[in-house]
């Protein structure tokens, strides 16, 4: 296996809320190889966005470790954190709120360059031009304000800003879910081209399973803060093993109108992520739940790089 760009071990992020601790990310471990894309899927509130933000140090982890290019960066502070941030960037979900409405396209892309203090004034302008070309932003939009751009173009500006400092690792937090399909496809193509050109490692957070299958090499499935299954992308779609993954995949509406449609019904209430009991969070809705499920689950390696957090995985598959 190639050297991992990002590795997290047992990562935890809790938020203090009124009644107690909200377990947004609870004991998640995985590796992302250099130049590859890890897709993180799950439903709203499963902690996938928090996971991405914790890895790039927008949130401080509650527990666990984060390794970047083999180095433990969990607790970096100050100067080292600033350096690290130049190597880890994020592209946001909502292209309408991720750009300062009072900044022109040029000002938005120039800001990270300016803050790095690596460029002279003349170089700044050239570098902005390069980034605009790289991300397919028309030169005439240089002095346009965000509200004059459509969602796809705004998202390109957001991508240009993230790539300004040549990061190694980019968290894409639902970057296409606010866009129309044809624009979405244009942006996805751009992201894939950029990955090849700049040798980027992506963590691609989304709830859209067809998008994640298209762009990812590996996929993590999360449920209420817990990692339930991680596997190479193709294998996950061909042989899902965790009951939740199976239910999730069966619910995707496909455009193949002749495909047989059999959705796995989920019953029961969704467990609250605030002060949860140990054990599998999915147990309350799982059709196969037994007493053992109430205990903390371990990851079982079912085939190379295919891990499932389910104590009954072997008997069920």
């Amino acid at each position, binding site marked *: 296996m190639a050297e991992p760009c990002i590795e997290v071990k047992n990562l935890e992020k809790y938020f203090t809320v009124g009644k107690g601790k909200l377990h947004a990310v609870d004991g998640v471990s995985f590796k992302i190889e250099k130049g590859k894309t890890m897709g993180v899927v799950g439903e709203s509130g499963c902690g996938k966005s928090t996971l991405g933000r914790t890895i790039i140090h*927008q949130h401080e982890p509650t527990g666990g470790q984060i390794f970047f290019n083999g180095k433990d960066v969990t607790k970096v502070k100050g100067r080292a954190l600033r350096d690290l941030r130049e190597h880890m*960037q994020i592209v946001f979900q909502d292209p309408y709120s*991720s750009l300062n409405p009072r900044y022109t396209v040029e000002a938005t892309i120039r800001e990270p360059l300016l803050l790095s203090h690596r460029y002279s004034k*003349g170089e*700044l302008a050239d570098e902005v031009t390069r980034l605009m070309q790289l991300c397919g932003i028309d*030169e005439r939009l240089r002095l346009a*304000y965000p*509200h004059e751009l459509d969602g796809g173009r705004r998202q390109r500006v957001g991508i240009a800003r*993230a790539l*300004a400092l040549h990061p190694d690792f980019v968290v894409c937090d639902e970057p296409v879910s606010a866009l129309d399909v044809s624009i979405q496809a244009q942006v996805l193509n751009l992201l894939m081209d950029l990955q090849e050109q700049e040798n980027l490692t992506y963590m691609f957070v989304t709830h859209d399973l067809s998008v994640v299958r298209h762009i990812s090499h590996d996929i993590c499935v999360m449920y209420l803060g817990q990692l339930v299954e991680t596997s190479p992308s193709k294998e996950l779609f061909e042989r899902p093993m965790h009951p939740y993954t199976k239910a999730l995949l069966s619910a995707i509406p496909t455009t193949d109108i002749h495909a047989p449609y059999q959705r796995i019904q989920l019953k029961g209430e969704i467990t609250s992520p605030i002060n949860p009991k140990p054990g599998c969070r999915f147990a309350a809705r799982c059709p196969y739940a037994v007493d053992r499920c109430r205990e903390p689950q371990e990851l079982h390696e079912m085939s190379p790089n295919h891990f499932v957090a389910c104590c009954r995985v072997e008997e069920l598959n």
Partner: protein
Amino acid sequence: MAEKKKAPATAKKKNQTLEIIKRLARNKVAMAAGIVFVLLFVMAIFAPLLEPYDYTLMNGKLAFAKPSLEHPFGCDRLGRDLMSRIIRGSRFSLGMGLLGVLCSLAAASVLGSVAGFFGQVADNIVMRLLDVIQAIPGILLTMTISTVLGRGFFNTVLALSIGGIPGNTRMLRAMILAIRNSEYVEAASSINCSKARIIAKHILPNAFAPVLVGAAMGIGGTIGQASMLSFVGLGIQPPDPEWGALISDGRNYIATYPHLIVFPGLMIGIVSLCACLLADGLRDATDPKLKK
């Protein structure tokens, strides 16, 4: 295209300012208000040259003189030319109104940013402090501070500005709270923006618009408060002809010699109105979303 690319950053900044002025110019009402405002300031600056008479010159014969060609605004109870007094008074009234609001805005920006951005303990401290200030009736507070600081122009400005701080701070804090969690602020921190830069460049410009208009509307009120201070013997004192002082001077004769009140009152009204209209226009002109 090429020359635009090479244009240095300062030239672009200048263009932006120009752009704002151009957009403001398209708003006829705001432009008119702006011109009136500029004229008022010119009047205040060149007051000694513009006064038809010495503003302290008393003339017993002209006591309570009605407006005439020689004395367009008439004369007060001591026979002083009211027009001269109003022109001279603009120095005090405009100055105090504007400076008072600016000072309270400056203080509110700092307090509001601290409270809104850092939250938690800082927020609690600032907000409780403001609660204390707001618990005291506004007039009483201003009077108390004015008493402690003593008379004089700048002391009065200070006293006036403190009363405006809580309102402006609250409004700003509310705006900042809404903006603080937006993704562009998060984006800024992920590209290593310092906290000070995030506040100055990303948060305040987007939070300031409603506060600005609110504050501009306060200019008239501040002038009124200044006059109240002179009335109770604090603030600006005779013979300095602050507008509010002129009104309180003439209040006993409102039925018989209304011009003593009408003209200074009109001036306060005009200033307040123009300030509001101008602020409204400025808010629209600086908002890139409304650019046409």
